[in-house]
């Protein structure tokens, strides 16, 4: 792995996205619109304050999962990945380059979504906004790395889009948005402890309500990071220089 090649890859990915303004607009605007919609639905109830933070966790995770899995699948299918792996590019350069590029996009996306939620929709964030962004970023990195890993098991864009409901929806359902996790049946509660999105949502809630100290949030961030590292390791196994 070299820093130069990692940055070159991240820069290349961002340049590709820059040539696609519609994607950028969708990426930045859609989360805010949806957050606004949810806030509107729950006008005059305290519900938005409790699920608002969870929504901020969902968008970077889902969106980055989708675009990472589709762009890397495209690299595998068009032969650009094969070309890069026949060149002196390390697998880590490839994965970290993507993670870096999508991480930056996620910061932009989360910053807009958080600003909109707080200043337009009136979401109360009692803790640090920076910590909130840090969790959103960790979440985006997790989505990116999982997407990269998932793309190895898809032969087509159709399949990779199906991984979204398969890998992402259970985490959303069990993450405590619909029902607080401690009220879930015991088995489901135990399972939800092992899903990374649950920890992201817990951490964002803790920041929003300022109910825990920074050490707790740091711990949750570490858990998310551990899952991301796991996905990177599994993902790099799927990046084979030699293929059948």
């Amino acid at each position: 792995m070299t820093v130069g090649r990692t940055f070159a890859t991240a820069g290349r990915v961002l340049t590709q996205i820059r040539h696609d303004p519609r994607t950028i607009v969708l990426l930045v605007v859609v989360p805010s619109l949806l957050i606004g919609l949810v806030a509107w639905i729950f006008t005059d109830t305290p519900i938005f304050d409790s699920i608002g933070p969870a929504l901020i966790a969902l968008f970077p995770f889902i969106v980055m999962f989708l675009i990472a899995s589709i762009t890397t699948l495209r690299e595998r299918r068009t032969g650009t990945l094969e070309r890069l792996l026949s060149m002196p590019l390390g697998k880590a350069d490839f994965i970290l380059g993507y993670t870096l590029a999508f991480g930056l996009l996620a910061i932009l996306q989360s910053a807009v979504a958080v600003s909109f939620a707080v200043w337009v929709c009136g979401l109360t964030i009692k803790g640090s906004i920076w910590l909130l962004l840090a969790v959103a970023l960790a979440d985006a990195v997790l989505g990116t790395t999982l997407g990269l890993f998932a793309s190895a098991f898809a032969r087509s864009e159709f399949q990779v889009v199906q991984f979204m409901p398969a890998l992402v929806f259970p985490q959303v359902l069990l993450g405590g948005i619909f029902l607080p996790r401690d009220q879930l049946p015991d088995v489901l509660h135990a399972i939800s402890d092992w899903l990374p999105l649950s920890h992201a949502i817990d951490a964002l809630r803790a920041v929003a309500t300022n109910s825990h100290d920074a050490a707790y949030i740091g711990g949750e961030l570490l858990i998310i990071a551990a899952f991301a590292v796991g996905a990177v390791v599994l993902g790099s196994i799927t990046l084979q220089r030699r293929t059948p």
Partner: protein
Amino acid sequence: MMDTTEPVISIRDLRVRRGRTAVLHGLSLSVPRGQVVGLLGPSGCGKTTLMRSIVGVQDVAGGEVTVLGGPAGSSALRHKVGYVTQAESVYDDLTVRQNLAYFARVLGAPKSDVDRVLTQTDLGANSGQLVSTLSGGQRSRVSLAAALLGTPELLVLDEPTVGLDPVLRVDLWTLFHELARAGTSLLVSSHVMDEATRCDRLLLMREGEILADETPDGLLAATGARDAEDAFLTLIARHPRHAADGGDS
């Protein structure tokens, strides 16, 4: 024959399977340095698999592939071998120059290389265009340009002239010979037999086997044929395995 320089590629008993079918079953060959060597054969005969094995991106079942003195695909070779796949493996949503600048950075090639390869492939006028807006022939030249970055010692080109207009094809063959004169070794595949006469040396391939390894003139002399197509048919008819079952399948 005297052998002052060691071959740029030498392959011994290469076996490759794809699923249950054997694509290459014990293939051996050697490619001399500084020449344009044509790998000719019908589509589906294993040319791409052979080239992928040489570049080191093919899972092989057995045998030995030595490229520039090292095992194929070893990390030292990744700077020295340029590879152009049949599909243009470049980014559609980048401009020509952005594509080349990225690959140059990955290779650690000097920045000036980008302009050099743009000139060599006659893409200077299109350098600011998105690859998705280019014609098929232009796209395949971008792919070729990327392989020329960093001046590799060996170029492996999989059907680089397919679908190009005749003038461009002649230009590319001229470029290949210029590169060879400057010391680069080239292995160029094609399923168009006319291109045989443009090579310094020919490898004729069919069903995963090398039928001939000759100069174009030597091939015609050995088979008594008028052109490469004819020579190919003669060789197939002479081959024991194909002759036995009537020359087909």
